[in-house]
Structures are given as structure tokens and as C-alpha cells.
């Protein structure tokens, strides 16, 4: 039957109306965006007349989801960073060494002297002097292992121990390694997010990619450099007791100590105790402050337990210096003037206001567990993005008008039915894009333009088929029906293959390519829907109304 049942008709047009309603906000992009932003602020607890006014720009009963504009259209910074997870492995082994030393030293009569040997960063090498004690040393070291808590429930040890003669080699076990990497990544993501949120940019994308990478996209930032400054420092802050000062950078610091350069005075080095008194993790707050000479500084406050430790330490060490160390550089090494009980203070150094603010941000957000390497960075200026949007819009309009004329001229009334379907199709693409919160990129616009061209394909297949069926002298109703029926397998096969390609692009592609895959894939779905259902519905309504004896396609 050519006619479509009422429930079906209603379903079809309901879908169209809903889709178009979802697309509607995109027609008033700036207005809706202002309104959405204002609403978000009101929800967050802010109120002002201006906000209420902005929020009222778009009625709340209408859908307000917008298509996200990709970085290439909006401008902003894109960074791909790699997390040096091996840093964490090395520092874990570093922290493990004192335990090994202590447990072996306790049985010195069996294992002899214990010395640490140089080795690759992912190994802890310990030499014992008594070959006879090798087995005992092996057992002792292995006894230090802790079960790894993992989802699989299998409790493997967190270390692997091997013994070769008198050389004990300790490595991190597979299970612990992956658990550790997972923790490091989660922590890194969290800290990156906090740091970027601190500077208050809107809608940043912070995404894990693969095992050791993070993708950071921040729209509206003038240059990737700003973000890089924010992420480039690990911000590991410690307060260490000063052992000595030296100008010899090769001086041996002695056991339990380490040598660090000074930031302000080149050529000056500090020998510090490795064990910090307190660390940045115990900070409760940090903000921009000024010292008594009105120079920018960073004010900080420790949490209660750290405040007590710091208080006790200052009480016991009045008159001796301690060093404030940031990422293995001494920022300043003041002398303790008096007991500091409250757990708050300021860090002075040669800061500009900007540097001090940044450092405060970093300290508040916490230290990165591992260093970041920047693998890829892109900055797109907002003007370039706007140019691309304008050019894309113009091209889409010109292309659309030409296609519409072409279809109208080729298929007459049926062509115009297809054109209505095409317009609905474009609306639906935007509707679905807004609904799923997809990102529109420059290649995405190309995908839409391509869909405009290809969307007519299904209609063309049907119309050509109707023409053929008309030649075999069947009635117009039967010809239309057969046209749809017989063109269906070609439509399904051809669109399914294209859809597969779009899926592959989506899975393997990244960034702009993915944006293209989304619009292409959605375009295929909506164009098949409009061609099979919308055009057909239009034709059947027209046919029922006119009852033509002959038709020309």
C-alpha cells in the first residue's frame, strides 16, 4: 500500500518535530550560550539582575543544548601530554631501599655488609658480602613485599626479588606496576583538571588517551603556552633542613642528604637532608601574598597535623636555616627566627605577581606524581575559527541552494519533496549533534556538506526506480510503491557500507577526523530516515489528496 497508516505518519512527523526543536537553539547560538552560562552561574548560587536578564534571553521550556564547536572553529589550545609513569616506579624503589637496608642490617651476622649498587632506574640492586647468606637475604627481601590490591582479587606481591650470587635485584612486579600506573594516571588527570579549573576557563576537555597519555583541550585560550606553563611544573614542594651551603656542584652530599641548586643565586648549592620536615601535600591553602617589603610572595597554611610537626621543628631549630624546595630547586632558605606555631607562613623569592599567583595555584592543586612531556600542541586563534565557520556556512548555503535547484529541475514536484526532506535532514543532523553533545569541527562541516550531496542519493535511487516502474505501464500508485520496495536493498547496502567506514573513522581517528566521522555517520542515519520515511510520507499525503491519474517523476 502506498498510503502510510496514521500512527506511522504521526511517529514520523513527531520525530521530525522533536529533531528540529533540538536543532533550534543552534540558530541562536550566541543568545543561547549566554543564557546557558548565566543559568549555570545561577545554579551555582550566584544571583544578580544582569544574570537573570541573560538567563531570560532563551526561554527555559525550549531545549537549550548546543552543538559544541571544536577547537578549530572556536579557537583555543590543544595539548597531548605523556605522563612519565616510570618516575613513580623509580621513586617507589627509592623509598623501598631504606626498608631493605634495615631488614638486612638486622641480620648482619648472616648476610654481611649491605651496599646499594647502581643499576637501571627500574631496579634496586643490593650487594651483600656473605655468599652464604644469599638465601636468607632473598627471603628477607621477599618478606617485605606487600600484596597488591587489585580488582582481580589475586593477591600477588608488589615486588619481584631475584638473587644472583651475592647480588639481590628487586623490581616492581607486573601487578603492582599496572596498579601503580593506573593510580598515577588517575592522580595526574585529577591534578591537571584542578589546575585548569583554577584558572577558570570554560569547558576544558581533559581526557585520558591510551595507557600513558592525557589530551587537554582548552577553548578560548590565546596560546597553548599558558596551559603549558600551568602543567609544565610538577610543583613538588618540600621543606627540608639545610645541612650546608656550597659552590661545588659535584660535592658529595653524604648519606641521607642531597644536593640542590638555588634558584636565585646561580652557582650556589645547598646540601639538604633528604627527609623533608613537611611537604606540599600537607598544605591546606596557598594564595598570593606580599612580604613586609611589599614584594609578591605566596602565603600558605598547613593542615593541623603538619602545623604541629612544623611548629615542633621550628621550636627545636631556632637559628638554623631550612630550605623551601620546589621541584628540586631551592626557592629560598630562610633562617628560623622563632617558633612558628600557627602552621602558616609565606614563601618569598624573586617572584612577579603573576609567578606568585601561578605558584599558589599549583600548590593548591597539588603536585603532579610524575613529569609530563608535551607530545603535541596546537593553538588555533579564534579569528581563524570564525573565518572557517563563515566560509563553511557560506559554502553550505551555496551548495545547498544549487543542489535544491538541481533536484527541482530534475524531478519536478518529487524533487521538491526531496528538497523538503533535505532541509529536514540538515535540521535533524544538528538536532542529534546537540542532543549527544557532539563536537562540530571543520572537517565536520565538510561532512555535513557532503551529506547534503549524498542525502539526495536515496531519493534519487527511489525516483529513478519509480521512473523505470512507470515505463512498464503500471498505475502511478503501484509504481511509487514498487519504486520504494525495489530501491530499498540498494539503499541499505550502500548506506551500510558508508556507515561502516564512518564507524572505523570514529574508532581510529582523533580530533578533527573524529568530528568528521560523527557528522558523516549521523548524516547517513538521518538521510536514510528522511528519504525513506519523510519523502514517502510527503508523497503519500500528496497522493491521497490529489489522486493523480498519471505522474511525472
Amino acid at each position: 500500500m502506498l498510503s502510510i497508516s496514521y500512527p506511522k505518519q504521526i511517529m514520523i512527523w513527531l520525530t521530525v518535530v522533536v529533531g528540529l526543536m533540538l536543532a533550534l537553539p543552534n540558530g541562536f547560538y550566541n543568545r543561547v550560550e549566554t543564557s546557558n552560562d548565566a543559568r549555570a552561574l545561577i545554579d551555582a548560587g550566584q544571583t544578580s539582575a544582569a544574570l537573570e536578564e541573560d538567563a531570560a534571553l532563551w526561554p527555559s521550556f525550549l531545549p537549550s543544548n548546543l552543538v559544541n564547536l571544536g577547537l578549530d572553529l572556536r579557537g583555543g589550545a590543544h595539548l597531548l601530554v605523556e605522563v612519565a609513569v616510570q618516575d613513580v616506579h623509580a621513586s617507589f624503589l627509592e623509598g623501598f631501599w631504606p626498608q631493605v637496608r634495615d631488614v638486612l642490617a638486622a641480620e648482619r651476622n648472616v648476610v654481611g655488609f649491605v651496599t646499594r649498587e647502581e643499576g637501571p632506574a627500574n631496579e634496586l640492586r643490593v650487594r651483600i658480602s656473605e655468599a652464604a647468606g644469599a638465601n636468607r637475604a632473598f627471603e628477607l627481601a621477599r618478606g617485605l613485599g606487600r600484596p597488591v590490591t587489585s580488582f582481580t582479587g589475586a593477591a600477588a606481591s608488589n615486588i619481584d626479588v631475584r638473587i644472583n650470587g651475592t647480588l639481590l635485584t628487586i623490581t616492581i612486579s607486573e601487578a603492582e606496576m599496572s596498579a601503580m600506573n593506573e593510580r598515577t594516571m588517575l592522580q595526574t588527570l585529577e591534578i591537571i583538571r584542578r589546575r585548569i579549573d583554577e584558572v577558570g576557563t570554560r569547558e576544558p576537555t581533559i581526557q585520558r588517551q591510551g595507557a600513558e597519555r592525557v589530551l587537554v583541550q582548552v577553548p578560548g585560550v590565546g596560546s597553548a603556552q599558558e596551559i603549558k606553563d600551568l602543567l609544565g611544573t610538577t610543583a613538588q614542594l618540600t621543606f627540608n633542613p639545610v645541612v650546608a651551603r656550597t659552590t661545588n656542584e659535584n660535592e658529595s652530599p653524604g648519606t641521607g642528604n642531597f644536593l640542590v641548586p638555588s634558584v636565585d643565586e646561580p652557582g650556589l648549592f645547598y646540601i639538604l637532608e633528604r627527609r623533608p620536615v613537611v611537604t606540599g601535600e600537607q598544605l591546606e591553602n596557598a594564595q598570593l601574598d606580599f612580604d613586609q617589603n611589599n614584594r609578591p610572595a605566596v602565603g600558605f597554611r598547613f593542615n593541623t597535623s603538619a602545623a604541629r610537626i612544623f611548629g615542633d621543628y621550628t621550636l627545636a631549630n631556632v637559628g638554623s636555616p631550612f630550605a623551601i624546595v620546589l621541584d628540586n630547586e631551592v626557592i629560598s632558605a630562610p633562617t628560623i627566627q622563632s617558633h612558628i606555631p600557627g602552621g602558616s607562613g609565606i614563601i618569598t623569592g624573586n617572584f612577579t605577581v603573576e609567578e606568585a599567583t601561578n605558584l599558589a595555584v599549583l600548590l593548591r592543586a597539588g603536585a603532579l606524581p610524575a613529569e609530563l612531556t608535551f607530545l603535541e600542541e596546537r593553538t588555533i586563534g579564534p579569528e581563524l575559527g570564525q573565518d572557517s565557520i563563515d566560509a563553511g556556512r557560506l559554502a553550505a548555503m551555496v551548495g545547498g541552494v544549487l543542489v535544491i535547484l538541481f533536484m527541482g529541475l530534475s524531478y519536478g514536484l518529487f524533487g521538491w519533496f526531496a528538497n523538503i526532506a533535505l532541509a529536514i535532514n540538515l535540521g535533524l543532523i544538528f538536532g542529534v549533534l546537540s542532543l549527544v553533545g557532539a563536537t562540530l569541527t571543520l572537517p565536520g562541516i565538510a561532512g555535513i556538506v557532503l551529506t547534503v550531496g549524498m542525502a539526495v542519493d536515496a531519493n534519487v535511487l527511489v525516483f529513478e526506480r519509480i521512473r523505470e516502474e512507470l515505463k512498464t505501464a503500471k498505475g502511478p500508485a503501484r509504481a511509487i510503491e514498487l519504486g520504494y520496495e525495489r530501491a530499498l536493498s540498494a539503499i541499505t547496502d550502500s548506506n551500510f557500507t558508508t556507515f561502516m567506514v564512518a564507524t572505523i573513522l570514529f574508532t581510529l581517528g582523533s580530533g578533527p577526523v573524529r568530528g568528521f566521522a560523527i557528522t558523516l555517520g549521523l548524516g547517513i542515519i538521518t538521510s536514510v530516515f528522511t528519504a525513506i520515511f519523510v519523502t514517502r510520507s510527503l508523497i503519500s499525503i500528496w497522493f491521497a489528496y490529489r489522486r493523480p491519474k498519471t505522474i511525472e517523476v
Partner: protein
Amino acid sequence: MRLRLVPEQTNINFFRYAWVTFGASALMVVMSVIVFFVYGLNFGIDFRGGTSIRTESTQSVDVAAYREALTPLELGDVSITQVFDPTFDDDQNVAMIRIQAQDGDESISPQTILQIQDALRGVAPDITFPSVESVGPKVSGELIRTAVLAVLGALTAIVIYIWLRFEWQFAVGAVAALVHDVVLTIGIFALFQIRFDLAIIAALLTIVGYSINDTVVVFDRARENLRKYKAKPLVEVLNLSANETLSRTIMTSGTTLIALIALLVLGGDVIRGFVFAIAWGIIVGTYSSLYVAKNIVLMLGVKRDWSKKDPAAGTKYGHIDT
């Protein structure tokens, strides 16, 4: 009056000059491969690593002066090209500067970028930098790998699908046409040294998708006609199918090309390479559906009998031993 690109009834013999058309296709493929190996592709930073900087100034671009300004920085291989586009204003002068990946660095150091920007400001004081992109060699290597994987994956998926829906001969024909389209597109990019980046891979896959679309429509009709005219020779059935779907083939390619040409002319220079690849691919894709895919099917021959197996099939050769 209707606009008709193709007469209502066509009876073109697509196989009459089969050796000429098929030979031409084969020749073009071979030439593309040669061009590819002789000139190589002009890989963008996505695949080669390095930094690309887009500059914009009201003063006209003096490539030699730009180059001279950058020479003291010792950046290695630097390429500077002016960009022309009909959508630019009269006083909008745009250039692309590409710098090779710097030794030992994953992405370019901020100092280097500042140095470059300062050096260029010396030449054109009002210069701005609408985009700065930098890709490290590590990532670019991976991008090549995923790109190749994506193209191969798409081809494999298509072959399997066509094989399931049609016969294996059709699958071979379709994939031959696809390889033809992809190779020819890569060939033209090598010949004109158009920048080949990640977006072009997306374009290649789109071509694959579009071309298969075209081929499947002809095949679908061939399958239908093979059932309908059981006695007709394969050549005639394939020819008939191509003629019957010719109007649709030209219409669809036509509308798609119209939209793409609008984008090519008006869409700005940032996506020009991408759009060009798709437009070119649609032209060769349409050609290959008509002249390559079917030829392969014809060469391989097709099992004609789709009816249920003869119930007597099992005893067919029963008398051989006697």
C-alpha cells in the same frame, strides 16, 4: 520540462572499449605508484613531526625576507609558502611556515616559538599568528600507523560485507575499484605535492565509502538482473544494469560534486586539500564503478544459478564409475 543529464533510455556498451578503459585505469594506477615513489608525498606535520605556523599580515608576504629572518635561528629544514584564497580580504596576506622536528624535542620549545615570532615581527611588524601547531616525532609515527590501519580496516570490512551480501567475485571487483580510487588519489597528491595530513586520510576513507556506495548500487542491480534474465550472457546483464542505474549514478555524483565544488571554492584554504581529495575521489570513484569493478566481475565470471540446489545433485555423478 525536466532537466535530464542522461537520456531516458541509454544503451551504452561499457565493455566495447574494455581494454582501452581498463588499460587506462591500470596505467593510471601504475603511474600513480611511480609518481609516489619518485616524488613522494608532501607529508604535513601530522605525519612527519615538526611545527607549522600560520601568519597573517596586511603587508604582502615576502617569502625571501621571511626566510632570511629565520635563517639565524638554525631551525633546519624550513618551508615557507604563501596561501592564496578567494575568501581572503585584499589586505589579508597569509603564509604557512613549516619547521622540521627539532632534535631531541618532542614538541617545539616555547623559546623557539617566541624567537620565530620576534624574527618575523622584524619583517612585518603587524604580523599575527592565527595558529601554531606542533607535533612530536613520537606521535607522528603513531598517526601514520593508525592511518594505514584505518584504511586497511575499512577495505577489509567492506570486502567481508560485500562477500556476505553478494558473491566473492563482486567483493574482488569492488575492492579493486576501491584500491584504484585510493591509489589514484594518493598519486595526484604526490604529483602536485599537495600537503598530505591526517584530514586527507579521512578524505581517503570517505572516498572508499562513497565509491563503494556507487559500486554497490550497480552490483545490486546486476544481482537482480542476473535472477531476472537467467539466459542472458553476463556481459549483457552487467551492461544492462549499468545503463539502468546510469541516470542515478550521474545524478548522485552530480549533486555531491555541486556541494563539494561550492565548498572547494568558498570553504576557505584550511580545508581545501581535504575537499579537493574528496571531489577528486568522487570523480574517479564514479569512473571506477562503471569501468573497473564490473570488468573484474566479468573476468572472474559469476555463478548464475541462485535457485535451490538440485535435489539430485548428490547422485549427479553416480554413474561415473560404471
